[in-house]
């Protein structure tokens, strides 16, 4: 199968992503963009951070390069490296370099998961220098005004060993995210999954109850994303309790008693 090379334009969102503002996060983000400040999104898994960045990139008319960070991600993976192509050794830009050059939005999702050496390339981009050193090429790229760096991380499950250093944290404008309030979450579930208001209301009630267990053995509560999944399965004809068991009970815990108690909450609603 031939590999299709993606152009930068492919990263531009044509259609408006659905996003329901929950506070003043849109205005704050716009202000940060105007002031050329990097932004850090904090919040639990599945609460809408990525969707917010997508929405903002569409709203600002910028391309969006998203990098899902992981423990093997190095600075070279971000900025680029020399690769063998035929008889030649050629330089290939990494996603961060691509975003800088294109004046887009670089979104490093769960940045705390990446290797520590990535901070070396992030720091110069986040202060007033706004530059990206390409050490292997011996070059420095000056970020255009349109470029913006956004990172996200989930403070809920970071350990002491895996937390952002203060020297990194204090370079960003931080926007806190949490699960939406019930009415808003209901609207989101309806919009994203196509379920009716009553079903969406029940799903949101279940989520609210399950989130009460966060300090009782659950690392995280049910995300809005999982509620949307549940709604999508229900819309697809899956029986509600079965859909909830598959999308709510099982993904968030392996503790059988915890799963059963959550299932009982589901049974209370459906």
């Amino acid at each position, binding site marked *: 199968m031939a590999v299709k090379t993606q152009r930068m334009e492919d990263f531009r969102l044509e259609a408006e992503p659905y996003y329901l503002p929950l506070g003043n996060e849109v205005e704050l983000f716009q202000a940060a963009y105007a002031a050329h400040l990097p932004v850090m999104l904090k919040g639990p898994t599945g609460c809408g951070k990525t969707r917010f960045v997508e929405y903002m990139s569409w709203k600002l008319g910028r391309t969006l390069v998203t990098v899902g960070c992981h423990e093997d991600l190095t600075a070279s993976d971000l900025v680029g490296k020399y690769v063998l192509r035929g008889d030649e050794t050629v330089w290939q830009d990494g996603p961060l370099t691509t975003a800088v050059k294109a004046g887009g939005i670089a979104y490093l999702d769960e940045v705390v998961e990446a290797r520590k050496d990535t901070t070396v390339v992030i720091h110069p981009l986040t202060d007033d220098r706004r530059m990206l050193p390409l050490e292997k090429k011996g070059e420095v790229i000056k970020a255009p005004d349109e470029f913006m760096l956004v990172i996200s991380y989930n403070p809920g499950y970071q350990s002491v060993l895996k937390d952002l250093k203060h020297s990194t944290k204090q370079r960003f404008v931080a926007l806190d995210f949490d699960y939406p309030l019930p009415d808003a979450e209901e609207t989101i579930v309806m919009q994203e999954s196509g379920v009716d208001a009553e079903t969406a209301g029940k799903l949101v009630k279940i989520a609210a109850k399950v989130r*009460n*267990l966060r300090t*009782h*053995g659950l690392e995280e509560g049910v995300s809005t994303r999982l509620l949307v999944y549940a709604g999508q399965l229900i819309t697809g004809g899956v029986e509600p309790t079965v859909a909830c068991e598959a999308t709510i009970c099982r993904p968030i815990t392996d503790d059988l008693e915890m799963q059963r*108690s959550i299932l009982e909450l589901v049974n*209370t609603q459906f």
Partner: protein
Amino acid sequence: MSTQGGPAGNLNVGIYVGHEMLAAVPEDRRDDYLRMVKEISDLKYQLGVEVARQLPRLFEERDDAAIERYLDQVREIAKIGWKSGVEVARQLPDLYHAPDATLADAYVEIVADATMGAPEDDETAGYAAELDTLDQKLRAIEPMHQRQQELKSLLATRDRRDERRRKNAQELAAALPPILARLRPRHREVYLRAVRRVAAADPEAALEAANTLLEVLNSERLSHDGAAEWTRRGLEVLEKNREVGRGYFRMGSKFSLQVLEELREGLALRQVARVLKLYATALSGRDVAVRGLDEMDTVDRFGPDHIILPSDMRFFKDDDRNFTAYKVAAAHGAARIEFGTYRFQLDDVPDTVAALTDRYGMVPR
């Protein structure tokens, strides 16, 4: 060698008669030979062995009179003393061939006199008679002696069993207090009655029963009636077979588990307490503790963050519906906690009146 076939086949003289001995006897006389050996060996085994060795040479000579004479003389001496008879049986065939034909008879007479000795005197006859009487008496009491030995053996077995029982009772005495300390007070009466019954039957089984009953009662797996019935059935097993009975009380037998399952009533709170706690915590948003009714002496029934539930739920026959009953009770408790039913304090009444007045206007008189 053993004899096979023919009349000789029925004579068990194979151990005396070697192959070469039988081969030396003319074929038509072999049955006679074997019969004679058998007859003499019935008197004494050693005699049979010697006669079996000597007879073939007499048969070879085909002198039936000599054979008859030989056997008569051997029998004669053997009656007096079998050891002399063996020696005579060995020597006689040679003497038959001596030049003086009377020599053999004289030899036999000398040996007979020498073996027999002088006629018994009165004293010896008296000893013999007394000995004979004692022998008769001893034979008469032989069954009593055998019974005496049986009784000794029986009592020794029982002594060993009693010793083991005392040892097990001692172990039970040491083990019971810590077990009793863990027993919930409300189970004490039924527990003690059951353990006492088993201990009277078998202390070793009682030690097993003490542990098992503690577990099933404290965990509410059995009601008091169920525990008594489980014990009764175990005692029946114990009566038939001690080892199997001990296994029953150890809960180590399939039957024991079957009886337990059969007698189990309702759903024990302990089995579902954590699920209910999580359920109530999720519903109320408060850290709820679920307690059994049997813990009433240690908790405040109307405490702000715990739900008191029955230790077992027996409204329905199946666990699912009993769990639903628990769920209803837990949801009710969670609602009480969430909305603060028991947070009301008389001291707060004035403030409450003021707050209600502010909210709803003056309370009509």
